């Protein structure tokens, strides 16, 4: 459970805060609010009730605080008492925080008010207390009784942060030229005041620039396994070895926040509300209502209209598919398919470090550490860690994290640092997890006759190898370690910051990702400059040619259409007397072959005509959706071939006529489901992006599907 928090932000809203200085595009107040909003919305994003925030306006037009009887507390307004900040508060604060018409109001007094707020709210309870004052330091400041206030801050355990626009900060490198005398005095006063009570004094520029660096949520890990790391079976052999250990995440992917589904609120109501600017429930200008899932269950029933009937949830039992057979499992046997296992981490054997292929890592990693406060366990585990390490080995073990959980096989690798020792554990693949797809070798080419060739257009020659070697060496990264610590999940942080930004600025467009997030999207410029010559050499040695999009996906070379022997099948096909008419049962091959033999446009036309009539017959005779897949295959083949033969119009004309017939229910009744399938399979009109000779534009092709 995270600690309770009480933070009061004091925002200087004096008249002078409305000015733009030193060529900045934003006013001092806008600048300060970049920081304050970021902090507040970060707190809101946690959704924690106990992360409370208060907001005080300094140098406000009005006066509204608990000590306002005393005139030294005038022009200070409490805008938000301590509590959980929600969206309505954010909207209210956004409207309330504007530059005022006054420059009066004492900054030190505002700190006293903030202390008061915290005291009232937190009483003596355990809280993380904090006051953040953001100002440009041009207002009046009373230097009386500072020590007393400092003592109070320290006694109450409050952390004070003072940030100022254009405050001098030698360390960060900010120095305001021609600084106003009064401001210089104020700066000194604030610095002494803050640093005198253990607080922080800084310049706003630094605070805002640090917002760029994403903040990482620290998650406390819980052990995912507590038990014995063992070697041998202790229930049967007295030579078994057991060490009590615990297992924790070493890495675990932090997921971006997930969005929930909503529906637009029915009726124009949402619009009105949005226009009225009040009560709208989202920042997007649309009123949303939550979405519920409802599930119904269907089975196939040929006698029913549509071939399917609904069944009741109560008539269903749990089961599994075995092939296409349903296997039902009664409730009493619910765990019948679960393998009986008991928790434990058991060593199977050891492997050589150098013979382990790093790509076998299947998942996130964990650490295995000795049982807490058990010196003997830690000593025993240490001997294993060092033993494995000195033997240049890894251990392979079987892990069952909890009783009845499926076993996994894990690799245990030693990790030895000056002040920390553990085993790194990672899941290894089982036999079923390995898919054996085969690929030709990369360092030689084996010809059809089985001859091994080492010079080939697919193999690098010596020049290319040398050029590649030089380039790789030139592009070596200097840093000692991989940049894991300063690489941040781009999607996670982009969405989080977009949500926070949108909450405060509902009408602004979304922002580009911050530079920090895309730091590793491109190689370092300096490195690229250094390697420029090598890259040029490499490119000329490589002689890579981009395939023009026009010929991409074009019919494969004739050569590859021959069997291994190289026999000319086309010649054989020509001799086949019966192949002048495409037969329905062998339509696709015969259609392709007729096209490849075509020596005139008339034959192509004839082939398409025959194929079209076969497809229409298939539709007409389809019982329900029985022939739909064949139809899609036929259409798809036709489309592909006619793109290749640069005759898109033939396909487009046929598809247009087919659409008419389908929608007109001329092909055996209602075939809308088929049309939907055609759409889903992206078998629409061939447009100009697909085939240059097409007369159909991309928009027309889209229109073709949407119009009914």
């Amino acid at each position: 459970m995270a600690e309770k928090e009480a933070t009061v932000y004091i925002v200087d809203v004096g008249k002078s805060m409305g000015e733009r200085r030193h060529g900045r595009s934003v006013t001092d107040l806008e600048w300060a609010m970049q920081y304050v909003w970021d902090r507040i919305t970060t707190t809101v994003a946690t959704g924690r009730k106990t992360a409370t925030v208060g907001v005080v306006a300094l140098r406000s037009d009005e006066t509204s605080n608990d000590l306002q009887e005393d005139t030294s507390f005038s022009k200070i307004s409490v805008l938000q008492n301590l509590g959980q900040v929600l969206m309505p508060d954010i909207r209210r604060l956004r409207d309330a925080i504007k530059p005022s018409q006054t420059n009066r109001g004492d900054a030190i007094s505002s700190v006293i008010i903030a202390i008061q707020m915290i005291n009232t709210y937190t009483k003596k309870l355990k809280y993380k207390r904090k006051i953040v004052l953001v100002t440009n330091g041009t207002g009046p400041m009373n230097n009386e009784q500072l020590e007393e206030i400092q003592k109070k801050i320290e006694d109450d355990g409050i952390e004070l942060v003072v940030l100022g626009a254009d405050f001098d900060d030698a360390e960060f490198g900010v120095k305001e030229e021609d600084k106003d005398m009064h401001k210089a005095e104020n700066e000194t006063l604030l610095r002494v005041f803050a640093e005198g009570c253990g607080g922080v004094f800084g310049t706003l520029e630094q605070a805002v620039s640090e917002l760029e660096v994403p903040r990482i949520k620290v998650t406390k890990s819980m052990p995912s396994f507590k038990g014995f790391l063992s070697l041998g079976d202790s229930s049967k052999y007295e030579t078994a070895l057991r060490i009590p250990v615990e297992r924790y995440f070493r890495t675990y992917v932090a997921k971006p926040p997930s969005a929930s589904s909503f529906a637009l609120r029915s009726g124009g109501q949402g619009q009105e509300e949005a226009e009225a600017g009040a009560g709208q429930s989202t920042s997007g200008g649309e009123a949303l209502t939550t979405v519920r899932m409802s599930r119904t269950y269907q089975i196939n029933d040929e006698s029913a209209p549509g071939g399917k009937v609904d069944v009741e949830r109560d008539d269903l039992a749990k089961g599994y598919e075995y092939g296409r057979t349903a296997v039902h499992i009664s409730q009493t046997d619910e765990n019948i398919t679960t393998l009986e296992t008991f928790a434990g981490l058991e060593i199977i054997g050891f492997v050589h470090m150098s013979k382990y292929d790093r790509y076998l890592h299947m998942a996130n990693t964990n650490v295995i550490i000795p049982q807490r406060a058990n010196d003997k366990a830690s000593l025993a585990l240490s001997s294993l860690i060092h033993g494995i390490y000195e033997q240049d080995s890894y251990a392979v073990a079987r892990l069952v994290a909890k009783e009845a959980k499926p076993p996994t096989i894990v690799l245990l690798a030693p990790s030895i640092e000056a002040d920390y020792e553990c085993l790194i554990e990672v899941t290894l693949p089982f036999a079923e997890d390995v898919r054996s797809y085969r690929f030709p070798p990369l360092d030689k080419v084996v010809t059809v006759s089985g001859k091994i060739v080492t010079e080939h257009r697919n193999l690098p020659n010596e020049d290319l190898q040398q050029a590649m070697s030089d380039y790789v060496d030139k592009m070596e990264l200097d840093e000692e370690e991989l940049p894991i610590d300063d690489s941040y999940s781009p999607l996670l942080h982009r969405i989080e910051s977009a949500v926070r930004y949108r909450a405060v600025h509902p009408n602004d467009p979304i922002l580009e990702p911050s530079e920090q997030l895309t730091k590793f999207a491109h190689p370092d410029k300096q490195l690229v400059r250094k390697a420029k010559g090598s890259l040029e050499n490499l490119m000329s040695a490589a002689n890579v040619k981009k395939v023009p999009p026009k010929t991409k996906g074009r019919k494969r070379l004739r050569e590859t259409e021959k069997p291994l022997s190289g026999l000319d099948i086309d010649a054989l096909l020509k001799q086949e007397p019966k192949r002048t008419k495409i037969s329905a049962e062998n339509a696709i091959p015969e259609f392709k072959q007729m096209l490849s033999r075509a020596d005139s446009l008339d034959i192509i036309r004839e082939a398409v005509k025959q194929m079209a009539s076969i497809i229409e017959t298939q539709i007409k005779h389809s019982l329900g959706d029985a022939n739909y897949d064949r139809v899609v295959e036929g259409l798809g083949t036709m489309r592909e071939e006619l793109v290749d033969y640069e005759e898109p119009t033939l396909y487009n004309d046929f598809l247009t006529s087919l659409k008419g017939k389908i929608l007109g229910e001329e092909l055996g009744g209602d075939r809308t489901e088929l049309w939907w399938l055609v759409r889903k399979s992206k078998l629409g009109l061939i447009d100009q992006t697909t085939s240059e000779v097409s007369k159909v534009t991309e928009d027309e092709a889209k229109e073709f599907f949407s119009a009914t």
Partner: protein
Amino acid sequence: MADEGYTRDDENIEEEEVDETSFRAVKDAVLFAIDVSSSMLKPRLSEDPKKPGQESPTSAALKCAYHLMQQRIISNPHDMIGVLLYGTESSKFYDEDGERGGDISYPHCHLFTDLDIPSSEEVKELRALAEDAEEARKVLVPSKERVSMANVLFCANQIFTSKAPNFLSRRLFIVTDDDNPHGDSKSLRSAATVRARDLYDLGVNIELFPISRPDHEFDTSKFYDDIIYKTSPSDGEAPAYLQPDTNTSTAKGDGISLLNSLLSSINSRSVPRRSLFSNVPLEIGPNFKISVNGYLLLKRQEPARSCYVWLGGETPQIVKGITTQMADDTAQTVEKTEIRKAYKFGGEQVAFTPEELHALRNFGDPVIRIIGFKPLSSLPIWANVKHPSFIYPSEEDYVGSTRVFSALQQKLLKDQKMALVWFIPRKNAAPVVAAMIAGEEKIDENGVQKVPPGMWIIPLPFADDVRQNPESTMNVSPDALTDAMREIIGQLQLPKGVYEPLKYPNPALQWHYRILQALALDEDHPGEPEDKTKPKYRQIDKRAGDYVLAWSEQLDAAFDKMFGGTAATKSTLVKRGPKDSADSAGGPSAKRVKTEGGAGGVDEEVKRCYEKGTVSKLTLPVLKEFLTAHGRSAAGKKADLVDRVEQFFETN
């Protein structure tokens, strides 16, 4: 429940193997065409006296088909498989109305298992054929006249055309020992080559599993080189036809080795190659790109999720669940286009338009961009978050990709280097920083490729994904103790010092399907599960037992030395009962002192109580410690724990 299913689908999108360009269904259909001739039926005796047995090539092929069928039910539950016997006396094909029956349009072609997702009956029938000689004798009768290969091929064509229309991958596995079925008959040969071409144009890939006869080496040049094509029609881009297969993996020899080499050869082709992403640019430097395809060679295979079964009819039927989304206020169905995504924030929702959401997820087009190189040793063993992707060059977008890729792969292999890359596998996928490492080709003892050559992309954790190490006690092992451990490690190397995944089937997955199979086929309960992941306890005891005892003494000595007198009182390690010695290796000494009643450990105490029937008198911490120590769940009420402890003794 419904909700859960929904989010899971969302996650899966990332991993699905997609083909965005094709209208074809990403499914695979395999049809076995098994030659049934007298030479194929002739049993071959095992030459190995230790493994007696006999196997005919046909029965070996049927066993392979059965094995593949079983395997694919687990690994590819939506893919089809069928078995066509040819050269049989009997003929069997579809009737006019689509049912199977005695048809003479394809004489001597016997469609034994129709091409489909197998049903439990079909599994049973095929097994009976593969194992039961009685059954086999009826069907496996060779015909007296020669079967026309053109007919066989066209028969296969018709099966694919009608049963697996629009599949992305359709494969015909021919198993035969006859390298020249039509001899010199020119017309029959040319008819067969034409039918083979039809299959090629239909998109069916013919894969040959040749078997040599004892006195005759199978020669593909006699006939099959006219039947088989260089490129696979469904994977035309890749130079897929791997020559070594036909040359080196011709199955031969006696029955058992024939079966094994056939199995290994078929296994290596059990799944069609499907890409995870295709033609993604690999940007080696600014303005220097080649194209690669990505594949998932390693992916955790999970049991299929349970489903609902309707029991109202004669046979149980799988129910299709349909989820509709309803607006909460009006209870009206909401169409997909009306759904808005919003994030919960400050008690309300912060919404974005679909276009904005899309833009937020967009970090540019798919790319693998090299941002520099580092020694392979700089990749920490812990820096991992998920399984890797495998990449292999493609010539489709950039001609010359293969040679450049090869140069890079060889350089990285030779110098033990890795590339650091910015990796966006497909449109709108979240970018990751990844390590790209070179992988060597690996060949198994049968000459079949085990691991392909190429490169692997290993996504690295971001700073957000790295957890802090938990606090831990550290007592560095003294050299003598470490040395004692090294002795143990030295005794227990896995064969060749290598982890071989293929030796370890997933026991939970196999058991799940084993039970389902028994239920589906009405078999007896299979009894004990086979679990190859269990350590070989006897061997460990035999090989390392003495070293463990030596280590244990070292441990006690080191512990005494480091922690002095305090340890001496805690330790009863010298006397070892069978169970006690287990705890001796660093048992939870601190705790044990607290819970120990007398001289014995927790185990003894609990055991005593069990024998006296007073387990329920034990305290909760003792019960918990005992159960945890034995890998049992320690959750629940006291009564549950007592039950579990008693159960432990009853079954042990």
